[in-house]
């Protein structure tokens, strides 16, 4: 159609160009100039056609744009920022309630309370990250009367006057006294109690129990002020700091993996099976000693245990024969070279391999507890300390790696008795002793000492050990410090993630990452609220969950800078398709529009002329 009309137009223009023919037209209408006038209305079909193509391109363009858009799951950047500022500005405050009970003293509780509070203020160290909020209540119980200070406060203790007398402390059985006090002090509120009892003629005895209380038995003539100072030191140094000097533990004493899991891998290393082969009854020990400890540490970390027996595992350092001790001796200088990592294939854990499949990034630390049975030529093998003494435990740890204990079998001394190359079982008593050393090492890896005396500036306190490996107040210390550490690491990880995501605007962010960030923030909020209300275990569990989710989000395998494509790439892919075509389409539309306008003008001119003529 288009060509015909065009041909018609050109024909007519050609006819006019010849000039002489077709006088009818020029005669019928005056001054008909085909170059500037036309009789019929210009058709709209061509315009419609080109513009329909042009508009279809325009309509399709938003679809194209949407299809090449990078999918980025929306991350809550503002909430992440608010979490980090919240943690930085107002320090994480753990509320701690103390209760001091003075039995048999004739003093005013208010004065005692002030003096203890001032001592606490002197001793408490300021941890920049997490601090504690103390409340103290003092009760003075003297036969008939019983005074409390402060009189009415929400945190005054629920202690019944007269429940504890000096006679409770007469016997020397600390465990029984501990249980008795637990029945008195144990209640719903988690507070740390100290009972100072005057009575009994023997000397002072200061004991910290397995739960959350301690007691101090003083002689008749002692001063209450001295006792108050001792109480303050106990409260700050032992109950708050866990027996350590500084308030917070360093990072190398937090062997919990980024996903909150620890694998304890126990290895029995036989150095040379030609000499002798030893085996152990691990399951029994696991049931009796390890299971309660693992359960107790549940809020702090999720622990699993595995064990193996290895052969042909010589050590890498040398020892020398000491005639006086009649044994081979290695010193603490050799300790860094003791672990022969080439021959000790310790890192073959099945549980960890399986976990590497489940977790994104297993930053957990396998704790190796390697017991080393020396070969017959180097037996007995003793560890000599720098001061010349022989170590009682024969063991050492390496922070964030694990511990090693050296055991000398009985057959060392009497060569004629042992039978080579038969399987000997390690006697259960020795095994239990070894495992007590292992538990001590495990505590050491968390920063706790296992000596059962705390030597403070104002006196010593005996520390009662617990069957679960950690006493309740030690678990509180761990929960608090892990909560603090986990929340801060969660905030920094999320902050790093948000900075990273914002610096790469064309990186795909999958939904999974968005969900992990959301859940991590929820867990962090829960941990904060629990911490400020004093529920340590659940706050530790929530904080480890928050930290592990944040780590999962940050270490998601799709965040790789090499695999996102830049704007230049996108442009280079699509422009050869669309640029030439769009150029033609636009040019056609513009040309048709111009032509239509011209023809319309021509037609209007003719109409005007015709009107003027008629």
């Amino acid at each position: 159609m288009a060509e015909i009309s065009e041909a018609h137009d050109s024909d007519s223009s050609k006819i006019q160009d010849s000039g002489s023919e077709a006088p009818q037209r020029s005669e019928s209408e005056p001054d008909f100039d085909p170059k500037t006038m036309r009789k019929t209305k210009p058709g709209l079909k061509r315009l419609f056609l080109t513009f329909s193509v042009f508009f279809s391109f325009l309509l399709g363009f938003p679809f194209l744009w949407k299809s090449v858009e990078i999918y980025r799951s929306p991350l809550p950047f503002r909430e992440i920022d608010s979490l980090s500022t919240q943690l930085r500005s107002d320090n994480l405050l753990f509320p701690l309630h103390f209760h001091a009970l003075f039995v048999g003293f004739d003093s005013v509780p208010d004065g005692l309370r002030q003096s203890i509070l001032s001592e606490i203020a002197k001793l408490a160290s300021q941890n920049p990250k997490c601090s504690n909020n103390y409340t103290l209540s003092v009760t003075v119980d003297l036969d008939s009367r019983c005074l409390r200070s402060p009189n009415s406060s929400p945190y005054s203790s629920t202690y019944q006057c007269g429940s504890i007398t000096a006679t409770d402390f007469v016997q020397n059985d600390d465990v029984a006294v501990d249980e008795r006090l637990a029945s008195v002090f144990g209640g719903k509120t988690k507070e740390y109690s100290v009972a100072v009892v005057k009575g009994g003629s023997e000397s002072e005895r200061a004991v910290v129990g397995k739960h959350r209380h301690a007691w101090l038995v003083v002689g008749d003539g002692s001063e209450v002020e001295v006792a108050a100072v001792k109480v303050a030191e106990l409260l700050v140094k032992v109950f708050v700091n866990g027996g350590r000097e500084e308030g917070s533990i360093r990072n190398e004493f937090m062997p919990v993996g980024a996903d909150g899991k620890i694998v304890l891998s126990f290895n029995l290393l036989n150095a040379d099976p030609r000499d002798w082969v030893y085996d152990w009854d691990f399951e029994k020990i696991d049931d009796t000693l390890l299971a309660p400890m693992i359960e107790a540490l549940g809020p702090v970390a999720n622990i699993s245990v595995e064990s193996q027996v290895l052969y042909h595992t010589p050590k890498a350092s040398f020892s020398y024969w000491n005639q006086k001790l009649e044994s081979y001796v290695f010193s603490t200088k050799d300790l860094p070279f003791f672990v022969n990592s080439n021959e000790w294939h310790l890192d073959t854990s099945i549980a960890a391999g399986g976990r590497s499949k489940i977790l994104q990034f297993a930053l957990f630390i396998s704790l190796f507890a390697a017991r080393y049975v020396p070969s017959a030529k180097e037996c007995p093998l003793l560890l000599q300390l720098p001061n010349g003494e022989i170590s009682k435990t024969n063991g050492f740890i390496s922070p964030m790696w694990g511990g090693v204990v050296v055991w000398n079998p009985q057959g060392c001394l009497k060569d004629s008795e042992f039978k080579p190359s038969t399987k000997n079982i390690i006697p259960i008593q020795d095994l239990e002793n070894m495992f007590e050393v292992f538990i001590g090492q495990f505590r050491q890896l968390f920063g706790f000492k296992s000596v059962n005396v705390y030597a403070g500036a104002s006196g010593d306190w005996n520390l009662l050990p617990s069957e679960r490996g950690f006493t309740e107040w030690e678990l509180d210390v761990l929960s608090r410090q892990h909560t603090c550490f986990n929340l801060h690491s969660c905030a920094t990880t999320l902050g790093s993630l948000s900075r990273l995501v914002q610096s790469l605007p064309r990186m795909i962010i999958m939904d999974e990452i968005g969900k992990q960030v959301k859940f991590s923030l929820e867990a962090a909020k829960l941990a904060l609220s629990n911490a400020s209300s004093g529920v340590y275990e659940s706050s530790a569990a929530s904080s480890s969950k928050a930290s592990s989710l944040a780590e999962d989000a940050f270490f998601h395998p799709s965040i790789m800078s090499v695999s996102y494509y830049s704007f230049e790439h996108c442009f280079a892919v699509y422009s050869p398709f669309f640029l030439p075509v769009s150029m033609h389409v636009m040019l056609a539309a513009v040309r048709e529009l111009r032509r239509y306008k011209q023809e319309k003008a021509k037609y209007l001119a003719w109409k005007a002329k015709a009107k003027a003529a008629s």
Partner: protein
Amino acid sequence: METFNNPKPVLHLLLLPCLLLYSSIAFSSSVEAAMHTNNWAVLVCTSRFWFNYRHMANTLSLYRTVKRLGIPDERIILMLADDMACNTRNKYPAQVFNNENHRLNLYGDNVEVDYRGYEVTVENFLRVLTGRHETAVPRSKRLLSDEGSHILLYMTGHGGDEFLKFQDSEELQSHDLADAVKQMKEKHRFKELLIMVDTCQAATLFNQLQSPGVLAIGSSMKGENSYSHHLDSDVGVSVVDRFTYYTLAFFERLNIYDNASLSSLFSSYNPSWLMSTAYYRKGVYKRSLEEVPVTTFFGSVMETIHTDAAYKALSRRNSGKFEAQTSLDQSVHHSERRTPVKVNDRDETHNINPEGQEGASKCPWSTFCNKFLKAENVDSLVNYGLVAMVPFLMISMWLVR
């Protein structure tokens, strides 16, 4: 004289930057307190083909050195892009030498290669550094370092101005490496990092490094080539590069107890022997190189603490009957715990698919309406839009006819 009249503001002005400096020093020193706990080594050979034998020999020589000085296999990530030992052109099968006297077989005993052949890619290398692996990657292929680790990163192959060539098909650029190191530092994946690069124009590869605690040394500067040391006419190819050869010569003189310093290592490189200038970059590395022993990176020094006492929990057990009771309870708990690991409830986050695909309803129009109204899946929306353009065009074509 006028300034003397107002000493106070001047003093304040002087005090303020001093205070700022002091507080910044205090803050930074409180942050940098991690103890050196372990050493890691990441050794990368990026070239393939037989004539690049020397790159593999370089990497294996360094592997042998760090193992000899104490870093165990579990803390070494060895990436070899090709297999020279079992190459059909190797006259000495299963043997790799770095010297024409064939004194040392580098492939002899206990070589554990973590990434081999075509697994050595830029993506895998950056994944190792940043730690972003897929879930199925085993522990032996991951860099499981922590904030107390010192890492030695050694790269060898063919390189150029700000790049390192991987497998003859892709490149690692200097900004990628700098970005990976920056992310490692942000996640505290190392305490100190030593980068050694033995390629042509090696020093350009760490031009963009800015993270603190990173030390880098390259075998040649921009515009210079790094040369091989000698040709082994028996094997038929060059067997070692000059930079690595002199590094190994330095370490052969050391043993596990020595404490030669890093500055002696760096000054042992003689430009006339290397035929290039070994250039090292201290950057923001705080310690002075004379004080840093070589074993902080090349050896393995375990921090050890003696265990003072055992935890006498068991000796507190009173009666045998009580003990039996508790052990019975615990055995019950124990059998419960021995059940297989329960499915992690985190798996539910993997099910991201939002739309529940109900069975295709009988009326296609209703499904179409449903899908259109939901409009959750953008791709399908785009497809429908493109499809809708077709009748549009058909109509316009018909009208023109």
